């Protein structure tokens, strides 16, 4: 009887150990996810700042061309299309 109980306990232990996900396969933790989210948001802000800097630079360049190089080629205005987040149903 004791042997059977011991064997069952052993099987249960092995099953529990065997069912554990391998190291690194349990998916990101909440902390890792938050860190990643913060990184993405920082990158989005950086891209927006770069866009604004580029627009400002192009504007300055065009002003310069129009003032000192009459007839020179200015950078054509391009539409700022940006991106789109997933739609919301309501």
């Amino acid at each position: 009887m004791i042997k059977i109980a011991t064997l069952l306990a052993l099987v249960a232990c092995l099953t529990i150990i065997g069912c554990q996900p391998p190291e690194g396969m349990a998916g990101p933790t909440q902390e890792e996810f938050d860190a990643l989210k913060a990184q993405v948001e920082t990158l989005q802000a950086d891209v927006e700042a770069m866009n604004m800097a580029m627009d400002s630079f192009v504007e300055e360049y065009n002003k310069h061309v129009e003032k000192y190089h009459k007839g020179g080629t200015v950078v054509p205005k391009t539409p700022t299309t940006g991106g789109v987040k997933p739609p919301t149903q309501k």
Partner: protein
Amino acid sequence: MNRLLGITLALSALLILVGCEGEEALETPNVTYEVTDNGATLVLDWDAVPDVDGYYIYADDVLIDSTTALTYDATVPAMVYGVSAYLGEDESAADEVDCTPVETANITVYGNSDPDPAHPSGIGFMADGSCVTLALSEPTNHPDIDFYFDDANFANLTIVSPGDHVPPYNDEENATAASGTDYAALEIAAALGNYITQRTVNNNAVLSFWIDPDADGWNNVTDHFGKIKVVSVSGATAPFTAVLNVAYQPIPGLRWVVTQ
């Protein structure tokens, strides 16, 4: 004898004057309203008019009901609802609630891939309900944008909420719903649950729209509804151009869009 004749004439004149005096006109009810039922019902209320038999209810000048109550749930969409008081055959003037949408015709908009700064891709509704086009390239327009037309991020021209843009033009969560192709026949904008913040704009389609500036679901204070007729969409590939007719319901939260 002369004296008797004088008195008789004076009495007769007095009786004629009293007899000819017009009857006092019935007081007009003072109607107020509240939008309920997620925008489907207009609840009319008014103060009691003294000494009357009841009240007549008119929808677009057609008598549709009578009541002795001081409230009426208007569930059939109309352009104008009216309430008058009646006493026997006499009837007061009607106090009216104007629910007529403000229409703007032949609005031309361009997909945002169009590089021409004179080709606006945004639309916005002014305080009077009229619809204007707005250039996305002008940052001062961004708070006023209610929808913009995107063909840079989509294969087809798509009407998009300004809050869906990255970065957002503003915080509004406006949306549209498919509503067939018959603009005049659409009398009430689509029920809640059928709207989405991005929708392909197809030639000849009719869309219901919902302006939700607070992005907080339906309310009868800041939300507005209306309908859009896509008269045409031109261009085989982007940039696309669309011509729209738009009707905007000025009463907050009301989904009625009767235009004829």
